[in-house]
């Protein structure tokens, strides 16, 4: 049987593991500096700003093309969501009514097991 110290595969795996740890540790130290935060957030801010400008430009373009703007679509989505919410409430009420009258509903109607379970005694078997 080959010893781990002479096993090239084991050595490779060890090396990858050590490199991973070393790089993570080095990067974590670098990322803990305020300079890193400043640089990262500056880059992120530029990207977010560009995204906002692009969004505004797109909105103007859509208006020109006589297409609904994002705001209008969002407004419609909000109304849809409110309708969905109301349907959900109605479904829930119907389920409760069906359950109380014993009528089968969309969800599982199998009778639930009794809520009588006790924890196993110390060192004993699970009931």
């Amino acid at each position: 049987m080959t010893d781990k110290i002479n096993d090239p595969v084991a050595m490779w795996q060890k090396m990858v593991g050590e490199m991973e740890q070393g790089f993570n540790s080095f990067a974590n130290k670098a990322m803990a500096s305020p300079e890193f935060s400043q640089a990262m957030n500056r880059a992120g801010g530029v990207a977010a700003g560009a995204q906002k400008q692009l969004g505004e430009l797109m909105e103007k373009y859509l208006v020109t093309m006589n297409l609904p703007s994002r705001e209008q679509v969002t407004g419609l989505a909000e109304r849809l969501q409110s309708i969905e919410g109301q349907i959900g409430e109605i479904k829930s009420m119907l389920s409760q009514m069906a359950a109380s009258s014993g009528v089968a509903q969309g969800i599982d109607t199998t009778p639930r097991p009794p809520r009588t379970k006790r924890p196993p005694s110390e060192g004993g078997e699970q009931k």
Partner: protein
Amino acid sequence: MNASAGTLDFASIPERIQSEVQRAIQRSIKGVEYFSTSGPTLGSTPKDVLHSRGTMSLYHYRPQSDELYRIPVLIVMATTNRGYILDLVPGQSFIEFLLKRGYDVYMLDWSAPRPEEKSLRMEDYVLDFIPDCVRRVQQDSGETDVSVIGYCFGGVLSLLYGSIFHDGPMKNLICFTTPIDFREMKLFSNFSDRRYFDVDRLVDSVGNVPPEMILSSFEMLRPASRTASQIQLWENIWNDEFVKSYRMFDRWATDTLPLAGEYFRTITKDLMWDNKLFNDTMSVGGRAAKLENIKVPILHAVAEHDHIVPYDAAKHLITKIGSTDKEEVMLKGGHVSLVAGANAIKRLWPKLDSWLGKRST
């Protein structure tokens, strides 16, 4: 160097070469298979959607034992990730484990907030979604008491809920890897340094915070780990069990959710910047959320090698909570392996069962 360790065993070389050649062939075959298949189906434990509203879904899992504990369990998932980490595949599903042990299990899970949900605030999560789900669990189970399990930021939401509704129906609280001292999340704290991070500009620009940004911030905590894990995958691609496990965890880890803009703004300002939960100055919708208000039995499970929520960020929870019946347990593993996978099956799940079973009658 040890003489025996340093001696090369020449007799084994042909055997090793043969084994490596076989593995190389297997890697090529399995490599093709890897890219042409979709991986195991996750989150398949039978369940019913009890309620769904925008980003929020409440599931009820169908019981798998002849007898149930009296008190149902509501799991509150972290808002950044999907709940199927707790329901991977049969045999490796925390949900299935609970069901087989006789718990009646519900889960509050999240889907990606829609663009119009960018205005969801912390109040919506703590004062509306969770109480709404608790009420529905009470109605569905017919029980007034409910045990709550919160994972990661789901734990933070559960703590906020419990500290505001301290006279409410929450009977037991279990938190997994839950941070309360956000100053101690050193890298996240530095990424969101108030001198450089303009959260208002970000939220006003993008609405919901994109999942790519959330994922990158998680990956930046261990920047070399993704490459190293891909190397590990290639080495072990001949091993079906390894590949199955890799795919499950990789799929979940990259399936990050966006965060509602206003909610993210509050997390950044109140928790990351002002550390209000730790400083006892947190309020949600004008209602004080002090940890000392929580008096129910609590178990806090933390991971020894958690790089996302370091122990220093989580360790004060037990001391600050108002309960007398409280326990912290530190287990081997990382942020995810604490709750899912072989490590969790062996360590956390049995511990949780023995703690919760006694308090569920």
